[in-house]
């Protein structure tokens, strides 16, 4: 027993000086760790969709359909994974307006990424739709209209 108080001193030091470190660590975890799902979808949206569907999902007049408040998301939920992966050709009707410009596909996105993206869109800009699950996305992707590359 060289120093019987050593353990007690260390514990006291952690309690008095270490707690700010622990607090900051916990905040980082909440900001960048636990909250990973929502930013991932948003990041993918910015990267793959925002150029055309724009910042608030508002679309562009008769050129690009909106995603914010779009009835199409509710009426064609099952088709969303394949539209994101393979794109969209031909006329579609969104909120009563016809759009007829091709949308390019994103065939490098994984099922997990497509899930994040759909879930983000289902909850962004005032949208409040039930979230499509990873399992539903994976199933839908197996029966896309075009052959997978």
């Amino acid at each position: 027993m060289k120093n019987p108080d050593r353990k007690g001193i260390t514990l006291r030091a952690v309690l008095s000086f270490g707690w700010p470190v622990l607090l900051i660590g916990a905040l980082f975890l909440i900001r960048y760790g636990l909250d990973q799902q929502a930013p991932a979808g948003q990041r993918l949206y910015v990267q793959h969709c925002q150029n055309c569907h724009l910042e608030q999902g508002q679309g562009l007049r008769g050129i690009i359909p909106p995603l914010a408040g779009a009835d199409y998301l509710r009426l064609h939920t099952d088709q969303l994974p394949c539209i994101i992966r393979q794109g969209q050709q031909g006329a579609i009707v969104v909120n009563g307006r016809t759009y007829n410009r091709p949308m390019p596909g994103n065939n490098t996105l994984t099922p997990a990424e497509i899930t994040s993206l759909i879930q983000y869109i289902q909850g962004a800009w005032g949208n409040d739709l039930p979230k499509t699950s990873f399992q539903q996305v994976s199933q839908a992707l197996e029966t896309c209209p075009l052959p997978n590359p």
Partner: protein
Amino acid sequence: MKYSFLTGSIALSLLVACTQSPTGPLPVLGVPHLSPSGDTVEYAIPDFGFTDQDSQAVTQATVAGKIVVADFFFTYCPSICPKMKEQLVRVYEKFQADDRIVILSHTIDPAHDSVATLREYASALGVESRRWHFLTGERDSLHAMAKHYMISAAVEASAPGGYIHSGAFILLDPQRRVRGYYDGTSAEEVDKLMRDIGRLLDEKP
């Protein structure tokens, strides 16, 4: 030494004063040249001939005496074009009733963007051709026109959609002199463009 430092400072402050003056006339951009008679001639966009979404010829005569806002794009462009068009619609709507202002949107891919394609695009955008001409024509002439506007437009296989091009809106005065460049993807820059159009309208001819 002291004297040259002083003249340098005066020259510098004059230069700063000229380039930063927020209330004076907008600068005339581009390199002037000397005419055969030795006069300095300011740079202006040369004559041109394209076709718009209604199959009408659009030339220098169409824009004679008008303020022009120009850009370069292509209809299926998946990168910055929708953002640019959203901003250009703001300019269009603000000056819709003013026949002193005209918008020229040049396609850089005329092989795809025919008159019919441009007509469908303009109609989907809900704009009228008198105020906003979507221009197609010879590809080389369109790309040369981008150079005359002093911006870039080029084939680039690796880029989304196969082309790279500037996202600039270019402001011309009624003499087709370049008076400003604005980032067409930025709402703040386009606010400035609309203020600058107002300043050009106030200029004495």
